[in-house]
């Protein structure tokens, strides 16, 4: 009876005080090794009783549960998913069993794991969006063309609907069904919900929910933004009379409020025989001077009493989406385990989606809404802290809010500033932070040797210079962490510098340094600022600091094999690596090159019954004319005989045994030097074993080298012989 891995893992989790009590989890060949936070919560007696746990002891601060070979890894996988540890981290544990990652690092790593697969989408879109949206800053007429509208649509698709991409990738990382993940992602940006980007705009909220706007707002707007000429042109002969008309236009009594659709349609003036809409200007004024809560806030769907769901989407969000999908995967897996197979197909997805939807909109969403408000209030307060300290801190932590997906709310702060003082002093801080990430990413792009990383880093840094930092942050800086931190320092320095600057307004007066619009940073921000020279200097300082720090502090992590190579005894021979040109075995999984020079003979001719019979797999023999065995393909060393005369190597499902001589095991290693050890990654042509032919002959054995695919039964189209 096969063990129920899931149940076993759940019982383990239950008896160690739950997943929250696990600091780290790893496994070896037979044991699940756990580091426990509070040993008082561990029920040892119950642990030993669990079906599948064969024994238990504590050693080196680890709680070790003996589970067994071939089983422990499955229980471990389930244990990770039960306790909520990242599925991605299990590969790390396998790859680097020695370096046990603390839990917080694993959590920090999750966004990276999720973003790496979707990089192609966001790098391309980010760069394109940066370019497309930068053009109108320098050439305003472009914004009115069909070209701009269409290119902008293409460019911002990935960002506007980012939660969908994040949800799909997260579902894969957490081991859930990616299509259910997609449904959750799509639900979060459903058009029936108010677009989250607009949640702070009175105009959008009013129009979405058809919420009447106090007519005084319109009055204020008329007073402040319309020219006398425009006021006179209003239908009815003047602003006041017109507003009274509007108030009663919807057929109701004068209630001091105006329906948003009316405002949209009716505020037009005739000028030179042409109708000119003023509603855009009016709305802009209202947005900058009034908050959404003044008109009743975002509407809810009431479920039970006052418990309801805010009708707002999650555009631009990352963390709530990841949490929602993480939760979805938990439910889905649990249901798959507990729902009878017959009804699993419709019950599990249905319940998964419904439960996830409720939890997301009722719990995760509201918690984040509160968090967002804190961040917003905190940011507003922070930049008022004197002597540039607050600005510097904001410049440093800004990219963190990008990781959290909170940065889109800053438009509210910016719009408020422009309304109050006419100068957006937030923009230089955001620009410093963003441009510093550009600098850090550029340093990585120029320094890194790995072509794949370089090909991501370069376009990502370009995109960041245009103000779209997500590709640089998620694809490079945050992933490697050090560049991210260097970027934070650059952002802080740049933001601090900004506080010492001043600019000039349109009237030539000296005012605070900042921008006159909002929503732009980086290079496209140049035409928007009131002191161009200093702004460019600011960008150079922020990115320069980040670039220099990254350049000196960050070091590319070498793959393990490359790191080992110089230290290995084979190093002196390394420059002379010769990749063999003759293949001896070919199959669907790959090609085996001739690992030792000499005469290739058929397997049946190897002077040993076991090898010749094919019990150990199909292959060839080689009568060596050289004393060096080299790797026949790129692969991993799977075993090295204690007596150094045989080596196993694996790659792409091929398991190969290279056995030097017949009965040479009896020489107990004398005359053989194996240059690799189990687990080493090797490249075709890399020397593996050096052997002494004279000694083999002297010991009375054949020196024929057996080159065998030990799992040739499982491989397709195996063809042996020199070619």
């Amino acid at each position, binding site marked *: 009876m096969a063990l129920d891995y899931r149940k076993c893992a759940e019982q383990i989790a239950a008896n160690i005080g739950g997943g929250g009590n696990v600091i780290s989890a790893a496994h070896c060949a037979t044991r699940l090794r756990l580091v426990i936070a509070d040993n008082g919560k561990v029920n040892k007696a119950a642990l030993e009783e669990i079906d599948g746990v064969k024994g238990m002891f504590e050693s080196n601060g680890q709680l070790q549960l003996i589970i067994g*070979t*071939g089983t422990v890894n499955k229980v471990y996988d389930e244990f990770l998913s039960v306790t909520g540890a990242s599925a991605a981290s299990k590969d790390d544990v396998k790859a680097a069993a020695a370096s046990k990652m603390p839990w917080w690092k694993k959590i920090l790593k999750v966004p990276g794991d999720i973003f790496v697969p979707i990089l192609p989408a966001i790098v391309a879109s980010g760069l394109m969006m940066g370019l497309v949206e930068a053009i109108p800053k320098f050439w305003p007429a472009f914004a009115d063309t069909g070209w701009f509208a269409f290119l902008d649509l293409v460019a911002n698709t990935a960002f506007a609907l980012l939660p969908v991409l994040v949800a799909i990738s997260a579902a894969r990382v957490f081991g859930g069904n990616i299509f259910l993940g997609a449904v959750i992602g799509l639900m979060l940006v459903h058009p029936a919900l108010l677009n989250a980007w607009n949640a702070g705009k009175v105009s959008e909220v009013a129009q979405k929910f058809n919420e009447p706007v106090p007519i005084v707002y319109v009055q204020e707007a008329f007073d402040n933004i319309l020219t006398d000429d425009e006021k006179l042109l209003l239908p009815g002969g003047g602003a006041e009379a017109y507003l009274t008309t509007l108030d009663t236009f919807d057929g109701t009594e004068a209630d001091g409020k105006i329906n948003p659709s009316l405002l949209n349609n009716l505020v037009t003036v005739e000028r030179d025989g042409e109708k000119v809409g003023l509603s855009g200007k009016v709305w802009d004024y209202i947005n900058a001077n009034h908050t959404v809560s003044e008109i009743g806030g975002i509407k809810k769907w009431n479920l039970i009493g006052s418990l309801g769901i805010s009708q707002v989407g999650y555009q631009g969000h990352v963390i709530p989406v990841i949490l929602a999908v993480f939760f979805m995967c938990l439910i889905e897996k649990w249901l798959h385990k507990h729902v009878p197979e017959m009804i699993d197909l419709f019950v599990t997805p249905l319940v998964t989606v419904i439960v996830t939807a409720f939890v997301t909109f009722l719990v995760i969403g509201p918690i984040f809404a509160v968090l967002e408000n804190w961040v917003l209030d905190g940011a507003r307060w922070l930049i008022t802290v004197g002597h540039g300290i607050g600005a510097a801190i904001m410049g440093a932590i800004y990219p963190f809010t990008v990781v959290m997906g909170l940065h889109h709310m800053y438009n509210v702060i910016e719009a408020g500033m422009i309304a109050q003082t006419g100068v957006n002093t937030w923009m230089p801080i955001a620009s410093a932070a963003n441009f510093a990430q550009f600098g850090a990413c550029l340093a990585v792009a120029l320094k890194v040797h790995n072509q794949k990383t370089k090909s991501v880093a370069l376009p990502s840094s370009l995109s960041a210079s245009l103000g779209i930092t997500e590709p640089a942050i998620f694809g490079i800086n945050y992933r490697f962490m050090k560049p991210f931190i260097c970027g934070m320092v650059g952002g802080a320095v740049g933001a601090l510098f900004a506080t010492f600057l001043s600019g000039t307004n349109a009237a030539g007066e000296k005012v605070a340094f900042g921008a006159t619009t909002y929503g732009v940073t980086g290079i496209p921000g140049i035409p928007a600022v009131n002191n161009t020279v200093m702004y460019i200097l600011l960008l150079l300082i922020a990115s320069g600091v980040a670039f220099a720090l990254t350049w000196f502090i960050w070091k590319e992590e070498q793959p393990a094999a490359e790191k080992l190579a110089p230290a290995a005894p084979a190093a002196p021979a390394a420059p002379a690596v010769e990749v063999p040109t003759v293949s001896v075995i070919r199959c669907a999984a790959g090609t085996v090159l001739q690992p030792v020079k000499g005469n290739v003979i058929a397997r049946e001719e190897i002077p040993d019954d076991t090898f010749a019979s094919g019990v150990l*797999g199909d292959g060839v023999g080689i009568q060596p004319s050289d004393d060096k065995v080299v790797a026949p393909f790129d692969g991993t060393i799977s075993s090295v005989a204690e007596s150094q005369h045989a080596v196993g190597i694996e790659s792409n499902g091929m398991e190969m045994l290279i056995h030097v001589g017949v009965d040479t095991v*009896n020489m107990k290693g004398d005359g053989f030097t194996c240059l690799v050890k189990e687990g080493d990654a090797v490249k075709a042509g890399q020397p593996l074993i050096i052997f002494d032919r004279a000694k083999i002959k002297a010991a009375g054995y054949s020196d024929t080298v057996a080159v065998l695919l030990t799992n040739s039964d499982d491989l397709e189209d195996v063809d042996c012989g020199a070619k």
Partner: protein
Amino acid sequence: MKTFEYTITDPVGIHARPAGVLVKEIKKYASTVTVAKGEKAVNALKLMALMGMGIKQGDTVKVTVEGADEETAAAAIEAFFKANL
């Protein structure tokens, strides 16, 4: 699940040739066979892993047989160990 312990008497231990014949024997059965020495344990169908254990004469191995035909398989494999290893 059936287990038995066996002390290797073959002078070269479980090396290429003995390992090969052992794998061939185990392939006859549907059960999963695990060979463990001390803390290290491997799936006995994996020839390379088996050889990598470096099991020598005098070593005691613990063999675990688990699967539908574990009764017959365990008996046959134990007999095989006694006869060949």
